[in-house]
């Protein structure tokens, strides 16, 4: 038996329990706020987001309606708060499938290479040479407007970014010695890919996912502007901004507050993205 040559030197504990970066903390706090608004909108406002109040049409911010009311006398605050759920849903569903599908496909094509990789590459080219918005509009036009079809359309296009990111990362990681070690240890390709490569290659995709989530909400807004997004009376921020644009001069609050909510959500995701990038990077 060989005796221990040197005692393993654990790094100071502080290394492991390092406090998360302020960006991540702030991002998580904001996310918590958004999630709270989505889960318990009634906590934030007593009004229904859809009920009309003929007596309070286009009223500016007051104590009763801190964000004012819209052209139907609906409380803008409660529409903004209730919109959180929809917009988080949009953020999630516009990106979930592209993320999962694109990432997996990227991993598989990078790992396998060959014909599969080439075919998917051509497909990606095809998607890429179409202007994104135009393609989405065309697909929504085929399927009809509404959130579900928007998700489908965005998914049909959105996977390419994840595919490309993950593919590049897996190709890099594939060369890393731990991945080669896993192959030499006789592990099955799927184990090498899923257990070893993917966890180490998914970080850029996750970081991009955060940006993409706010882009998803923005896309929802753009489609809303063209009438292809969320359908009334759903309180969705982008559509609220779009609807409010006619009142920008006379009733600025209708579009400004949802606009701020959009920005806040964007900020949240971007902070989370930066923070996650730090947190997910394995320390060495």
């Amino acid at each position: 038996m060989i005796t221990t040559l040197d005692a393993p030197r654990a790094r100071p504990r502080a290394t492991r329990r390092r406090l998360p970066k302020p960006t991540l903390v702030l991002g998580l706090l904001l996310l918590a706020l958004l999630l709270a608004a989505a889960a318990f909108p009634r906590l934030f406002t007593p009004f229904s987001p859809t009920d009309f109040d003929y007596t309070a049409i286009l009223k500016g911010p007051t104590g009763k309606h801190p964000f004012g009311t819209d052209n139907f006398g609906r409380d803008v605050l409660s529409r903004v708060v209730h919109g959180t759920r929809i917009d988080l849903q949009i953020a999630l569903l516009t990106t979930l499938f592209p993320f999962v599908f694109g990432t997996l496909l990227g991993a598989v094509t990078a790992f396998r290479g060959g014909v599969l990789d080439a075919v998917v590459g051509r497909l990606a080219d095809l998607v890429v040479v179409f202007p994104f918005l135009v393609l989405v509009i065309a697909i929504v036009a085929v399927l009809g407007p509404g959130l579900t079809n928007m998700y489908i359309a965005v998914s049909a296009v959105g996977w390419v970014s994840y595919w490309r990111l993950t593919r590049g990362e897996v190709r890099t990681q594939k060369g890393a010695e731990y991945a080669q070690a896993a192959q030499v240890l006789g592990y099955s390709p799927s184990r090498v890919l899923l257990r070893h490569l993917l966890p180490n290659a998914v970080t850029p995709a996750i970081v991009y996912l955060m940006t993409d989530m706010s882009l998803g909400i923005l896309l929802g807004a753009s489609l809303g502007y063209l009438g292809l997004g969320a359908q009334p009376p759903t309180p969705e921020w982008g559509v609220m901004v779009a609807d409010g644009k006619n009142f920008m001069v006379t009733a600025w609050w209708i579009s400004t507050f949802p606009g701020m909510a959009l920005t806040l959500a964007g900020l949240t995701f971007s902070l989370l993205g930066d923070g996650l990038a730090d947190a997910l990077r394995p320390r060495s």
Partner: protein
Amino acid sequence: MTAVPSPIPPRGPATPPTPDAAPLLSVRGLTKTFPVRQGLLDRWRGQPRAAVQALTDVQLDVRRGETLGIVGESGCGKSTLARTLVRLMPADRGSVTYAGTDVLALQGPALRRYHRQVQMIFQDPYSSLNPRMTVGQVLREALTVHRLRPPHEIPARVTELLNLVGLPPEAAGRLPHEFSGGQRQRVGIARALALEPECLIADELVSALDVSVQAQVVNLLLELQTRLQLTVLFVAHDLRLVQHLSHRVAVMYLGRVVEIADTETLFSAPSHPYTQGLLAAAPGLDPTRRRAQPAIVGELPSPLRVPSGCAFRTRCPHAFARCETERPELRARTDGQQVACHLDTPPLPEETRTARP
């Protein structure tokens, strides 16, 4: 000897393996090229135009129980050879036979069995371990996937393996970044040993380590080899280490093996002009013996444009017309030395070492 207490009792020189035994691993005509692609964005990548000649007609035998050192300049194909042997890369041509089986044709379960017999340990202590898996997970995975132990015996075996490489049991719970470089190399070795292989392929195992730690890992390798009767392919560019560890040494230049001999012969009577230059260029530890002239002049040619004939001719002091047109084959010399050179006995470079005060 010094008074430094050594944890390993010094032994006599290891018995060299019997030379007449059939080789355990035998490589014939192994050739590997990497097409170089051009272009920027992947999707617009064009057709391959040039290719890196990483291995050309490599031929060597590894005998059971021996340590074969492989040296050569950077980019000469050492790693490519190692990786091809463990099937990390397909070869273009040639054959690899391990204990009678054709390694390059192995598939599925047979390939897994091969991997249990031939393991590789890697150079980079920072990238050779999955940064997200604890050492325990790494070892457990190897044991479970190959069903080497019933589940209840696995924890004990993990401890045993850690012990074998000189790590305490609590190392199992740590992530790679919590270890020093030398310790990581031990983990890498433990991972390879988990499969109880017969043959280890060590690619630059200690090159990335500090000098003071290198010796620790080298000792471990020596110890394990003797205890477990391992056959070792030791790839390195540090000639002193190779000399110390290997029974025999193969010298590579631009994808080709230019000389193989037992260590004694190679270091005392190098035959190939490149081997001679390489040995001369290695900086010795004696400041009083310095050479006035460079050992080899000229730049290493690009592996994309390997010179015709003998690849070394562009830098060889003895090159003559035939070297340009005809490629010298690896030929056996009388004393078991194999050399790829048109000259039977190229003159040793004249002793230019000068004494300094």
